[in-house]
């Protein structure tokens, strides 16, 4: 299937989901759906570096928070429409991703993982000490109840949901087309054997830098609308460890080798968390994520997609 046709199908599905929600008229669905779509973006973005190249990024929260804090900065400086903010956040996080990769990717994989964790704390300390964006007290963002687009007036949360839907579709399309392109094959050689790839003339450093930049930019985009969604942003919530854990757990539970895994993982785990938060408590839902992550890496290393593929292969050989 060509990328264009795939994109059109995704857009139709996305629009259908929106219309269903709109007709049902339950505002909560959009609140929950926004979070799930946000995780689709984060986990697809993580997977471009983690799943395709095999480099683990623990600092997803840092890129996400960069996006969110770019929004806060411009909100105080000169309020811009959210789509513009998304582009700005993508540029900021992309540049940080590139810089981060440039500093650490010449080293072994484990160092990269530790460095990303370190970067998250450095950035958090900077934000805590930066009074302009609220410091440790946090910042309030006032949003309108409704917004008018092309003559139609819709609820603000529906607007945010639609934006996040577009971002989610964009990240799925990007990660799908990377996997099928020369770039994706290059990434796979890095994952399988970096030394051999280098020896056969694959420009590994350049490819890894492309991966960190794209991955960082997508995560930043996911964070850009977040202050408008939550209304009050403080460093502890923007840099929360749950973003780091979720954006690792979702692709691993779904399966890291293709674009389908992060999507499946994000939808399943995201919905599960929404249900657990409402019915039990938010601490328990984090415990569930952690336990599932540990269980899946030990028992089903290729995730749900891997399990299904094994099942299909077994049936075909019978």
């Amino acid at each position, binding site marked *: 299937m060509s990328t264009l046709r795939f994109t059109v199908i995704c857009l139709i599905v996305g629009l259908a989901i929106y219309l269903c929600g709109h007709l049902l008229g339950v505002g909560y669905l959009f609140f929950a759906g926004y979070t799930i779509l946000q995780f689709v973006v984060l986990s697809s973005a993580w997977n471009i570096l983690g799943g395709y190249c095999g480099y683990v990024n623990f600092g997803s929260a840092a890129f996400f928070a960069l996006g969110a804090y770019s929004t806060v900065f411009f909100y105080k400086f000169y309020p811009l429409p959210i789509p513009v903010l998304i582009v700005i956040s993508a540029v900021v996080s992309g540049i940080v991703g590139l810089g981060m990769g440039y500093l650490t990717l010449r080293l072994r994989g484990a160092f990269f993982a*530790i460095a990303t964790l370190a970067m998250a704390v450095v950035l958090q300390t900077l934000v805590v000490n930066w009074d302009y964006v609220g410091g440790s007290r946090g910042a309030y963002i006032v949003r309108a109840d409704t917004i008018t687009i092309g003559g139609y007036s819709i609820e603000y949360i529906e607007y945010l949901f639609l934006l996040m839907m577009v971002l989610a579709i964009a990240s799925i399309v990007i990660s799908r087309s990377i996997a099928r392109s020369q770039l994706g094959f290059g990434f796979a050689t890095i994952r399988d054997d970096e030394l051999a790839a280098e020896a056969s003339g694959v420009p590994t450093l350049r490819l890894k830098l492309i991966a960190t930049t794209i991955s960082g930019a997508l995560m930043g985009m996911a964070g850009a609308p977040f202050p408008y969604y939550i209304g009050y942003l403080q460093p502890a919530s923007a840099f929360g460890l749950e973003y780091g854990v979720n954006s690792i757990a979702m692709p691993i539970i779904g399966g890291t080798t293709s674009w389908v895994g992060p999507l499946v993982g994000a939808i399943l785990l995201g919905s599960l968390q929404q249900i657990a938060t409402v019915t039990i408590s938010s601490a328990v839902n984090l*415990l569930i994520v952690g336990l599932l992550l*540990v269980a899946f890496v*030990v028992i089903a290393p290729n995730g749900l997609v891997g399990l299904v593929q094994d099942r299909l292969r077994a049936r075909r050989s019978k």
Partner: protein
Amino acid sequence: MDFPFELLINAIVAGLLLGGFYAAVTAGVSISFGMLDIVNIAHPAFIILGSYIAYIINISFGIDPIVASILMLPVFYVLGTFIYQVYYVSFEKRGQESLRGLAFFFGLLFVTEVTLILVFGVDYRYVEASYIGPSLHLGNIDFPLRMLVPCITALVLFGLLHLLVTRTFTGRAIMAVSQDQLALQLMAADPIRIKRIAFGISIATAAIAGALLVIIQPVEPSVGREYIGRVFAICVLGGLGSLPGSLVAAMLLGVMESITSTFYGPSWAPAVSFGFLLLTLAFRPAGLFGR
């Protein structure tokens, strides 16, 4: 304006004491990450677990936290060997330790932390012992006993570990496994068994480090995260797998953090260690004392 020398000297002394404690925290990671190449980022979570166990024993039986942690050593050792066994069977044997092994430890870190939050809540817990409170004074310099006792304990722990890896057969085998696993196998020693023992020892040090932590400051479950960066910064700075190197690096980091928080405010202190780690990784990945 004259420079506050007294403040500076006090900050340096406090930093050295803090550094001694950091050395105890790092000892376990020096073994697991430096020698065994196992990126155990869950180590700080085990330290917090050690703090809570020391806290429970201290509150219920009135036993000194350090004594309590020594009693807990065998339990932590067994826990460590068990975790290594799972890690070996699930990842090392399949050759997947890089990506999934990291995710495994990240999951463990998270599960431990959330479980502690569910059981104990997010209140700060502290222990009681006779040496928490008083200080020694030498001239104008203060030596708070709550820092001095952990520092001395840490140095003793470090000395014992150093003796272990340089003088005993098992210790030398651990050093050997970090250099050449195949060669060790040819000498008829089982590398997996040696690694299991080493990882057990590494987790056992977390029991002591945890007790020291709860003496120095009140503990709540998410405190551990601050130590991830410090521990790896010290480990990398000291040159991987070198115990004396990480002791010096720990002291250096302690002094720098102490000076930063004395002169610029405590909210900047976490950035010191992590910033230092990033710079070290970027410009001198072999560490200051690396080969």
